[in-house]
């Protein structure tokens, strides 16, 4: 029988993978992709909790929906910024934009 624990564990693993990607990727596009995985892990957690524990309100489902929306918005802006980074720096790696240090 599938339980909430299964889904939460999967979500946590996805989150771990996403975090790993955010920290290890050097291409900023890949970093954004990892952020996507993080967001999806969160959405999955919301949706599964909603499905198992909150049958009346659907708030979790709606939340998952909004996470998807926010992800789309975030990504479009992120990519637009990366495009500008590419135009100004010639690359989209963390080395290229590491000039803001204290």
């Amino acid at each position, binding site marked *: 029988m599938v339980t909430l624990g299964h889904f939460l564990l999967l979500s946590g693993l996805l989150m771990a993978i996403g*975090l790993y990607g955010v*920290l*290890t990727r050097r291409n*900023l596009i890949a970093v954004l992709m990892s952020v996507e995985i993080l967001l999806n892990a969160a959405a999955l957690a919301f949706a599964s909790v909603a499905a198992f524990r909150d049958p009346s309100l659907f708030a979790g489902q709606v939340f998952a929906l909004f996470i998807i929306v926010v992800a789309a918005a975030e990504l479009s802006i992120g990519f637009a910024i990366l495009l500008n980074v590419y135009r100004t720096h010639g690359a989209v790696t*963390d080395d290229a*934009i*590491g000039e803001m240090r*204290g």
Partner: protein
Amino acid sequence: MSYVELSYWIPLLPALGFVLLVLFGRSLPGRSSGWIATAVMAVVAVLSLGLLRDVILAAPGWDLAALLGGNHEEALAKAGSPDFPFRLEWTWLAIRGEAGIPLVIYIDALAAVVTAMVALASLFIHLFSIGYMHGEERYPTFFAYLQLFSAAMLAFVLAGNFFHSLLAWEVMGLMSYLLIGFLYKKKTAQQAQKKAFITTKLADLGFMLGLFWLYLLIGNFDLADLASEQTLALIGTGAAAAVGLLVFVAAMGKSAQFPLHVWLLDAMEGPTPVSAMIHAATMVAAGVYLTGRFYPLLLHGEVLWVVAWVGALTALFAAVLAPAYADVKKILAWSTVSQLGYMFLGLGVFGWAAAMFHLLAHAFFKALLFLGSGSMIHGAKTQDIFEMDRLKKYMPWTYWTFLVGALALMGIPPFAGFWSKDLILHAAEEHARFLWLVGLTAAFFTAFYTTRMIVIAFHKPAMPSPWKAAAWTQGAPWLNLGPNEAEPDPSPPEGHRPHESGAEMIAALLALAVLSLVVGFWGSPVFGYGLLTLVYWGDAPELLPAAKLMAGYVTGTLVALAGAGLAAYWYTADPLRPRAPVWLTAALQRRLYLDEFFYRALGALAQAPTYALELFDRYVVDALVDLVGYLSLVASSFLRHLQSGRFAVYALYMLLGALALYVGGVR
């Protein structure tokens, strides 16, 4: 449908006209925007005359035959319409189903009469402007402004709710600002519009305070409530007097009473029809009208004496100053201040109906005079009476109509000003003998400067203007402060021949001349004080004994004739008389240095606290800011090493922060 039911269209139509002209005025060809605005005002005039007819039919105590027959008791006893005074009410600003502040149109005889006056005067000013403003760059805008100005005044007059009055009053203030600065490229016009706006706004504070105080006392803004006995009993004498005084301050600002008259002369920077509008139909009349409406409150305490003294002083002060001016519009402006002083004097000495009568009469003859001066300026291309060249010869129509207005202003029978001014003087004689003398002196000076203006402008050939020459050459310090004398108006081009104005301008002048005559008769004893009987709000006007009446008439006429005769005698011989010393001329032209005094005194008053505040700002506020900056500098010298520029490192910090929160128990 009666005109009463249509009355809300009276302010609404010009407002709609304003919207129309603002939106589409630019795309209308030629003078059509002016004609549209005039047509709107014509409709409004018809509506307001119809309203007046309805009111005459409905008002109690109005029976022409009986009045002519002299049986006042019978005339007053005759019952009018039970609905009178008429009242139209709309729900407005209702909050959660409560009544809120209703939109009320309140039509008693006074409102109807003043509405008709405003509509008619405004109509003729519109008509005159069609020709006068021709060729102006913002022609449609001008008419749009005129429309809204008229709309605001009409709304103010018809308002049965003081909150609603306040709104209209403020719109009027705005429109006066916009119209005075209509020729906004002139620096002087900009200064004048600011001055007018700030002065009247300052005074408006009194209106607002009085109004809100009144609201605290009686719980609504309704006009009808104000007049009732219970209300007055409820308020108490002291509070009533205070409220009345506050409102009177607002009226002083709007109606240019000493010492808040300072804006009016500068307001001459607006185009001449604007001056006519402000001086005759709208702005300044509003103050008198408002005071008239608050009269029940003014009857308490000694407020009326304040009103009377302010009015009398203003009347005299302005009339004395006027002869020192060469600019025809400024002379007329002083005459307006003076005549408004008369109205307040009338109000102050219990001559309520007389003051209202004078308001009406003055509106027509002052509109006539201003439009006449506009015609003169248009034809002669100058505002300086010394530079006008025998205008009687070139502009006969303007001359004769202007003369009618001038005779009315001087108070020569049988013109309007005679009947109304005389009633005020009668009231003054009865209640305040000294003020009566002041009024008579003012009447003398009025006749004097009016005659001087006519003689020099219409009868004498052009000559170099002595005032203008002084302004250009002396460069005295007193010339640099105020806006107006610093840059005298340009002289007419070399060899310019004055010419008569266009047909519609003449038509407006003629109509106003006829009205100046008619209105006077309507309020005269010849017709049984018909107008006064109609508008009177309390007991019947006391009919003066014939002997006393005649004595007053003869005195007034003789004083006026004396002033006129002296002026005619002097100025026909030598336009530059009397050769006053420079300091006197300067003092008179600088309006007795009142403007400068206000400027300096108020400026000093306002600046004094700012020095203290500046010190506080420099040594307390700035020091704190500097401290914060220094602290953050110190802190950042350590923290800046955390900023590595590597994206992944930041992400790691974030994660460690989240972990710390988790470990710390935030879940």
